[in-house]
């Protein structure tokens, strides 16, 4: 990826090796600082999430190709990062995701049909963030890192940090990509979080591209190292290793809930697909690079490990059936997403609406209803 003709091109990939607990070949390995403490059943649960999240993604991609969605930003390749981080969160924690974090929305328990609604052009969100403690996906790059920081500051004010009560202490999680690390908002968020020792974890999925611009054109040093200058710990983790992502995030969240401040996690992963369904990645990256990452697939390694541990084929087959059912649910529910009603949107601009909006709504409704065969 480095430009061989530019001697100043930094190497942003070969700093400290990322934390890894499960190799691409499916072998469990140890790390001096982190361990995955779940049992086999827990790993099976994580694998189930990986399969389901990938199915949401492939199903939505197909729906876009069939013209049911206007756009879809695929997460293919980033399932382990999102499931590992998402499952490390507790119900009382609060997630601030981006538009590619379908796996986070899944882990928080929201119906993925809402995501279809956003990319179908039927809604701008849909769910109530308070219900399952997950904000609506942010499309402005990096903006949500400040929202998470503010939420975390609020946790401190409310006395929900460092009380030692596991079900009470809480943290915020900001999700972002490598592109967001160039934004001012992200750098301000790191600074504020460190200054306030806010209980927030910044979970960066370094998928190596901001649309077409490679990592080495975005940062001079590895992303995790950026934390040093702000005074918070930065951890690199194999973003395709769900066990490592879970272990690192669990530790970072616990640190935050205990009142020991924020952490920046860099999950080193790869966007196997396009930026969105409108993008053509063959214009800016080599097929060989994609092939190399295919060998590090986040699902394959867990499947290999589970088979080595004696999980039977019937279990895998049952999981496939469950994923098929989810796919069918998505195809059906996509058809049932109601069309947005412009008239009702006038009422959603403000809590207390205005005379102007009421007048414009009446004007629109009268115009709409003046046509022959209109519903009114």
């Amino acid at each position, binding site marked *: 990826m480095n430009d061989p003709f530019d001697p100043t091109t930094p190497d942003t990939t070969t700093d400290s090796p990322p934390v890894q607990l499960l190799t691409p070949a499916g072998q469990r390995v140890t790390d001096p600082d982190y361990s995955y403490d779940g049992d086999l059943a827990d790993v099976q649960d994580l694998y189930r999430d990986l399969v389901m999240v990938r199915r949401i993604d492939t199903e939505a991609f197909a729906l876009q190709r069939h013209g049911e969605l206007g756009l879809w930003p695929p997460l293919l390749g980033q399932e382990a990062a999102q499931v590992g981080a998402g499952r490390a969160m507790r119900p009382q924690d*609060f997630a*601030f995701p981006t538009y590619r974090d379908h796996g986070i929305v899944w882990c928080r328990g929201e119906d993925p049909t809402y995501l279809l609604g956003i990319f179908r052009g039927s*809604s*701008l*969100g*849909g*769910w*109530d*963030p*308070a219900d399952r403690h997950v*904000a*609506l996906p*942010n499309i*402005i790059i990096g*903006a949500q*890192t*400040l*929202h*998470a*920081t*503010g*939420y*975390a*500051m*609020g*946790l*401190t*004010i*409310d006395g929900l940090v460092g009380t030692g009560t596991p079900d009470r202490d809480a943290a*915020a999680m900001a999700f972002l990509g490598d592109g967001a690390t160039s934004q*001012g*908002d992200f750098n*301000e*968020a790191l*600074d*504020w979080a460190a*200054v306030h020792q806010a209980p927030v974890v910044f979970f960066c999925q370094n998928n190596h591209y901001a649309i077409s611009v490679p990592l080495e054109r975005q940062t001079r040093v590895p992303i995790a190292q950026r934390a040093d200058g702000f005074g918070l710990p930065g951890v690199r983790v194999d973003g395709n290793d769900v066990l490592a992502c879970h272990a690192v995030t669990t530790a970072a969240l616990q640190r935050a809930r205990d009142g020991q401040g924020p952490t920046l996690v860099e999950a080193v992963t790869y966007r196997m697909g396009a930026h969105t369904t409108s993008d053509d990645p063959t214009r800016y990256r080599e097929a060989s690079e994609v092939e190399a990452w295919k060998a590090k697939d986040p699902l394959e390694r867990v499947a290999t490990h589970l088979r080595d541990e004696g999980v039977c084929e019937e279990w895998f087959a049952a999981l496939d059936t469950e994923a098929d059912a989810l796919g069918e649910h998505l195809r059906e529910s996509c058809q049932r997403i109601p069309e947005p009603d412009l008239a009702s*949107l006038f*009422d*959603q*601009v*403000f*809590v*207390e609406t*205005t*005379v*102007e*909006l009421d007048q414009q709504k009446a004007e629109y409704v009268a115009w709409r209803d003046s046509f022959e065969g209109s519903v009114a």
Partner: protein
Amino acid sequence: MTTEKMTMVKAINSGLRASMEADSKVVVMGEDIGRLGGVFRVTEGLQKDFGDHRVMDTPLAESAIVGTAIGLTFRGFRPVIEIQFDGFVYPAYDQIVSQVARMHFRSSGKVRMPVVIRIPYGGGIGAVEHHSDSPEGQFAMTAGLKVVAPSTPHDAHWMIQQAIASDDPIVFMEPKRRYWESGQVDTGSTDLPLWSSQVVRPGRDATLITYGPMVKTCLASAEAAVEDGLELEVIDLRTLSPLDLAPVVESVRRTGHAVVVHEAARTLGLGAEIAARITEECFFSLEAPVQRVTGYDMPYPPSRAEEEFLPGLDRILDAVDRALQES
């Protein structure tokens, strides 16, 4: 009635204090607002009395001030932000326009953004660059934001409390050149709702429509016009988005002449919208085109030129003459 004479700075300070006493979820945040009490001393004494969790000295980053305030609303807080000067708000523009203004709409009405963004604004104080801007129009034209501008200590005292109590995001424009002028404040009650304009001087010959720092200037113009035998009606808009134009329409239908006055530049300023609305509502009562007396379409000039740049008594009366001569 318990009236007290105080400056606008003190009036806003006591309004903030009343809101913080009434609701423990009200938090105040901004640059230098804690220990220093703000560069204009609007928040003086609040940190001492309410603690540094509720009166936060923030790092110097406007986008972060607004962005973290959004996060605080997700925990039920009602943040009141101080942007130190008008010209410093632009780094926060994205968080205000893309996030604060849209969160309620994005969530189909489920999320509430009770954020108040206080901005000391306008010129006339001999300041350096970026300290005299009038960006109210940029926020008034942003769907999802409400914008208000008090002109007197009494209004400032009550409007800040009403804004904090509102569940919608409000940009609160404080006319900084009037900060140190005193007026009577009835701290017991107010009879005006937040979203209302007010006739502050009745007249029959022409209507001056203005807000914020220019209200005093227009009142002085109306007083001077008496010598010429003219009775000018002055309307203080108070709310810039939404506009409350009922008093304006009623007045212009009577006088047949309208002059809009603001410090902000002319092109696409609030005067343009107000002139359009007057044309829509009062076309057959108008005896002359609506006049605008505004700042010119240039960045705010060096302060030694600001007296020429800002609308003053002579330019306002000249516009009144033009309106009357054309009829």
